[in-house]
């Protein structure tokens, strides 16, 4: 309940404030969003499994975002930023899909 409120609140805040992203952060934001999305889906799956722990969720969320950003940053420094961000997105996408599959099995038994 509160989580859904938070989701709506975040969307509204983003629309109302429409903040300008600093140029230095611009390449990392999309990757960070995908990483956070992965963490959220993972947390939802853990919740349905009955093993959800908010501390673990906070840590996984933040570390996911940070690691994704660091990987992209490193890639940029090494000159393979574009390829590495593609790789990160692919890996996270696979994880999101498998998490969503587990969630689906829990909710719909299918």
């Amino acid at each position, binding site marked *: 309940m509160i*989580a859904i409120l938070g989701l709506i609140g975040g969307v509204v805040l983003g629309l109302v404030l429409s903040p300008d992203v600093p140029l230095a952060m611009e390449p990392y*934001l999309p990757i960070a*969003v995908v990483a956070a999305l992965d963490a959220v889906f993972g947390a939802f799956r*853990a919740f349905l*499994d009955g093993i959800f722990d908010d501390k673990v*969720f906070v840590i996984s969320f933040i570390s996911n975002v940070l690691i994704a950003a660091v990987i992209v940053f490193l890639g940029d420094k090494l000159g393979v930023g574009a390829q590495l961000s593609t790789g990160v997105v692919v890996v996270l996408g696979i994880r999101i899909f498998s998490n969503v599959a587990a969630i689906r099995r829990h909710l719909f038994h299918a």
Partner: protein
Amino acid sequence: MNPTDATPPASSPPSGMARLRRSFFSPSRGQAVVAVLVGLLAFAAVTQARLTGKDDTYAGLRQAELIQALNGLQSASRKAERDISQLEATRDRLRSSTQRRTTALEQARKELRTLGVLAGTLPATGPGIRVTVQDPKGDLSLNHLLDGVEELRNAGVEAIEFNDRVRVIAQTSFEDDPDGVRVDGVVLRPPYVIDAIGDPDTLAGALTFQEGFADDVKLDSGSVSVKKEDRIKVTVTRTPSKPRYAQPVPGQ
């Protein structure tokens, strides 16, 4: 690092659906934390989505991608320039060939007009003389008439017409006829009116010199009157006939 990495417990407590339903109506501290983080995610996602929508194509690209895009644009522009110069060359070629053709056509038209006057296919007008040959007794010899035409030709006549009915050209034939003369198969009766275009003085001189055409006609008890005019009209034309035997020599 991620909650999904943990294995689910062996004992099977309430199903996921039931837990979801229960926690939906019983807020807890954990849910507040989740709400904050999910809100943060939503905020970032919305920001990024707005940024992507607003971005023009090149703002978010990396250096390598920009160089690639630049290279692509450069090669495209080189190709376009090559196309332009090719098309321009084609255009110039077409233009010059059109010009040449127009000039040739103009020249051919001019020549056609000139030749048309000489060959009798076009009506002509210009300064000249009008010769009236009276032959009251019908004694005029055809040879004398023919001499007159020859004199006119010698004097540089450009168009001759008999009685406003027959155009005299290179192939014109003259024959005797009981009623008068037959010019190109057309019977003409006296008086013969010859319209000749050319220099009036020269033409008149060619007919009236001593023992010339005028005197010959007088011998045949006829009379000749020559009138110089600024404007003689030769209106009779003939259709050109294709030569059956004579072929133009090619390449001349």
